[in-house]
């Protein structure tokens, strides 16, 4: 149910973000989607990649500090109100969305979004009970292979 997201610490300087991307590219690892959270001085590059174990090792060997976090991929209908319906399921729960970002690919008329919850398991249970499709990790990686 949950998928592994890699976070990499970067200083906010021109040219910093290309280095880890180039490193993964040279080893044939595909970055499926990413988001950057930044402050004036530093940032966090968050990525979903095709082989997270190998990517973590490569990045660490290159001297990066890497954090692995479990996140949840959810299918969101690509139509007005699609995202609201997902969020409304959680509205009255104590579950907090830390951040979210979307996948570079969709499936027909849905988008896939990455959610970082403070309580992933509780969130999954709640969303599934409301009929919202949580994407299996296997599915993410196999889609990654197709596109």
């Amino acid at each position, binding site marked *: 149910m949950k998928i592994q997201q890699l976070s990499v610490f970067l*200083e906010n300087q021109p040219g910093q973000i290309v280095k880890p991307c180039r490193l993964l590219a040279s080893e044939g690892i595909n970055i499926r989607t990413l988001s950057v959270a930044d402050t004036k001085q530093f940032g966090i590059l968050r990525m979903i990649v095709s082989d997270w174990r190998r990517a973590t090792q490569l990045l660490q060997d290159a001297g990066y500090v890497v954090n692995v976090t479990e996140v949840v991929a959810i299918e969101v209908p690509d139509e007005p109100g699609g995202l609201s319906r997902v969020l409304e399921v959680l509205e009255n729960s104590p579950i907090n969305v830390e951040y979210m970002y979307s996948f570079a690919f969709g499936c027909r008329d849905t988008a896939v979004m990455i959610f970082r919850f403070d309580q992933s398991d509780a969130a999954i249970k709640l969303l599934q009970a409301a009929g919202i499709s949580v994407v299996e990790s296997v599915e993410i990686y196999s889609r990654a292979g197709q596109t």
Partner: protein
Amino acid sequence: MIGTAENVKQRFNPVSAPDYLPVPLLRDLQLTRLQSTVRRAFENVDLTRERMKKQGVRPEDIQSLDDLPRLPFTVKADLRDTYPYGLFACPLRDVVRLHASSGTTGKPIVVAYTQDDLDVWTSVMARALASYGIHRDDIFQNAHGYGLFTGGLGFHYGLEALGVTVIPISGGSTDRQVMIMKDFKVTAICATPSYFVHMLERASEMGVDVRELPLRAGGFGAEPWSESMRRHIEAAAGIKAYDCYGLSEITGPGVGAECWFQGGPHIFEDHFYPEIIDPETGENVPDGVEGELVVTTLSKQAMPMIRFRTRDITALVAEPCPCGRTLRRIRRIGRRSDDMLIIRGVNLYPSQIESALLAVEGTLPHYQIILTREKGLDQVEVQVEVTPEVFGDRIRALVDLKEKLTRAVENTLGLRVSVSLVEPHSIQRSEGKAKRVIDRRTES
């Protein structure tokens, strides 16, 4: 109970016997040795003779240890001004070894040893190691640089005299250091504290948990290191980390060493006589009061040092140590008056910043202080490397960490600073003494 076998927690090593001289005998020995040192310097070293004459003091005026403050000081600049051989008190043919300081600016300073001097140095190093509980069954990794720096050879001779198995690996090649530490089943080590921290970091990257190795003790010195740094090292390596005090001008490492109780180094006073002075006025201050450490060598032949101003800020601890040694201790050197930075008129020491940083998360040993000047105003930037322990996926946690670090440093210094979190390994590692401060204030 003082000095019982149970108290000292380690076997008594006969090389340590001079550490336990009854105080009256020790003072008597110090006076005799002081008198002959002063005479030797007066007769053979032009600089000392001229200064003593100018001050109106002759060797025979030294009738008790209390007469010591009548003698003139020697300072580091004197060694530079007389470079290379001007302070020698013996013919060069009696000198069997030369060492030189790293000398960050211009010419290095040169120090000389006769065979007797080397023998004394070896004996105090053996006593230092014995006070760390090192014995002939130990396998010792000497990661101090071998060469002109006194650290490597100083430890080496002391270790051999003690019958310890020495690995003369010297500094550098960190991956190999870790491999050898593990494969050779090293039980004790010496290095600068900053280099050892770097070794621990490499070890962890290489998948080696130093806490699970046989390593149990380390002697660290050659640069000021804080008590929080010691706690970090002890926890991260699973060892006891002992302070080793020394300086090339006096002999090298082995001027003083901590015992099991880690209450600051005992000075090997039968060879090195300590005083504390007010660095501003040059007046002696009472025991327990902080000031600059001044050391007079009591048995050096090649290069006697009369009242050498070490620039190290500390205090003499006269209270007896539970280990039973009669040698006085000094407080651990937290700072050197050389390291003092004056920022917007405020006096500041890098070690204060180190303690503040370590107090926050306990895992941030790599830092650097960068001083710049903007519109005539000094700016302080503290760069701190991010470690896996403090790094997560949430930006807010990092922003909080940065704020906490900023507050901790500002509260300690009473001065606005900007803290930057930087990528691992972006701060240059040193294999010897760490360079903590980059002062760019004169560049613009």
